[in-house]
C-alpha cells in the first residue's frame, strides 16, 4: 500500500505537518517495503487555490491513503474525487509513528 503523510522536514522521522494544502513536504511511504520518499509541496507558492493544486498533484502519485491534520474544502473535494482514503493525526508526532498506526489500523478516518 502506498500512503502519503504531510510533514515538516523531508524525512521519515520528521514532525508531521498539520496542514495539507500548504504542507511543507509530502512523504510517500510504501507500507509493504517501508521505502519512503519526500517531495517538496509546490502548491505553497500559490496565493490562492493551494488546496486544489496539492490535491491534483497527490492524485497523480498513486497513493491509496493520505494522512494529515485537516483538509480545506477544495483539497477535500479534489482528494475525494480521486477516491483516496483520508485520515487525520491523533497522538502521532512523527511520520514514523503515523506509519506504525496505519499498519495497526489505529488511524482516525476523516
Amino acid at each position, binding site marked *: 500500500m502506498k500512503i502519503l503523510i504531510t510533514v515538516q522536514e523531508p524525512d521519515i522521522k520528521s514532525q508531521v505537518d498539520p496542514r495539507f494544502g500548504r504542507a511543507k513536504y509530502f512523504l510517500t511511504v510504501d507500507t509493504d517495503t517501508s521505502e519512503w520518499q519526500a517531495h517538496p509541496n509546490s502548491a505553497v507558492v500559490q496565493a490562492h*487555490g493551494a488546496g486544489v493544486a496539492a490535491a491534483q498533484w497527490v492524485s497523480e502519485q498513486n497513493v491509496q491513503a493520505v494522512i494529515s491534520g485537516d483538509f480545506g474544502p477544495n483539497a477535500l473535494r479534489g482528494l475525494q474525487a480521486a477516491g483516496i482514503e483520508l485520515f487525520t493525526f491523533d497522538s502521532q508526532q512523527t511520520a514514523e509513528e503515523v506509519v506504525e498506526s496505519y499498519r495497526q489500523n489505529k488511524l482516525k478516518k476523516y
Partner: protein
Amino acid sequence: MSHKGKIAVASGKGGTGKTTVATSLAVTMARKNQTVPPLFLDCDVEAPNAHLYLKPDWLKRKVVSMQIPEIDADQCIHCGLCADTCQFKALALVGEKVLVFPELCHGCGACSLVCPTNAISEKDNPIGVLESGSGLYGIQFARGVLNIGEPMAKPVISELKKWALPEQDQVMILDAPPGTTCSVVETIESADYLLLVTEPTPFGLHDLKLMLELARMMEIPHGVVINRHGIRNDSIEELCEQLGIPVLLTIPFQRKIAEGVSQGKHLVDIIPAFEEKFANLAQTILETIAANKAVVGSTHEGSRYEGGE
C-alpha cells in the same frame, strides 16, 4: 466627451466617513447646480449604504454575471491542459475528471481557449446586480450589490462603471469601498481627483499612508478630509504637511453629528455651516481637476499630477 470631473472618495480605514462626505458633497453640488446634478456611484458593492442618504427611486436593474467554465465530459480527453493553464487553480484534473472550483475562477476564459477538443463552454454565473435611479435633489444614483457568498467584488464594480456613465458636464462622485484592495483600485481607477477621508487615530493614520502611496502610484491628484477631528492627537496634519498634501476640510468629533448621520441626515443639514464648507471643497476640487486637464491638454508629456495648493 468632456465632463466636469470624476471624484472618488476613499479612506483606507473603514468607518472614517467616506459616505458621509461623499453624499454631503453630492447634495451640496446638486443644491447649487440644479441643471446638472451630479451622478453618484456607490461602489462599495459588498456593503452599500449611500442609498440611505440619497434615497433613490429605483428605475433600472441589471444582473452581473461571470463566465464560469463547464466541461463536456464526452469531449474531454483528460489532457489536463486547462488545469495547467489556469493561473488561479480553478480547475483540477483528478483521475479522468476535470473539477471546476467556481469561487477561484476569475472568468478569464483561458481554459476554453486552450482546450484541444473544445470541451469547455462558458456558463453565466450571476454574482450581483446593478441598480440605478433618481435620488434627492435630482442626483442620479447608481450602485452595485454583490450577491452574498460571492468572493469577487471587482467585476461588479467594473460593470457598474461601464453601465452608469456621466453626461457631458456632469460631475461623477464615486463612493469607494474601505481598504486598499483591488476593489478600491478598480473604483478609483481613472478618477480625476481622490478625496481621502481619515481620522486622527493610529489605524486612520496607518491606512491613510497606504492610500497616499496608492494615489501616488496611480498618479491621481488627492487631498485629505480629517473626520472626528479632536478624538485623539494622532499626527495626520503633520504627515500631510510633510508630504505637501492639502487638508481640505476638518469635521469635528461631535455626538450631534453621529446621531444625525445614524438617522440618515446629511452633514450639511445637521450643521448648516458645513454647507458653505462643502461648497468650497467642491470648488477647490473642480478647480484642481480643470487645472490638471489644462496641463495635460497643452503638453502631451505633462504629468497628470499638479498637486493641491
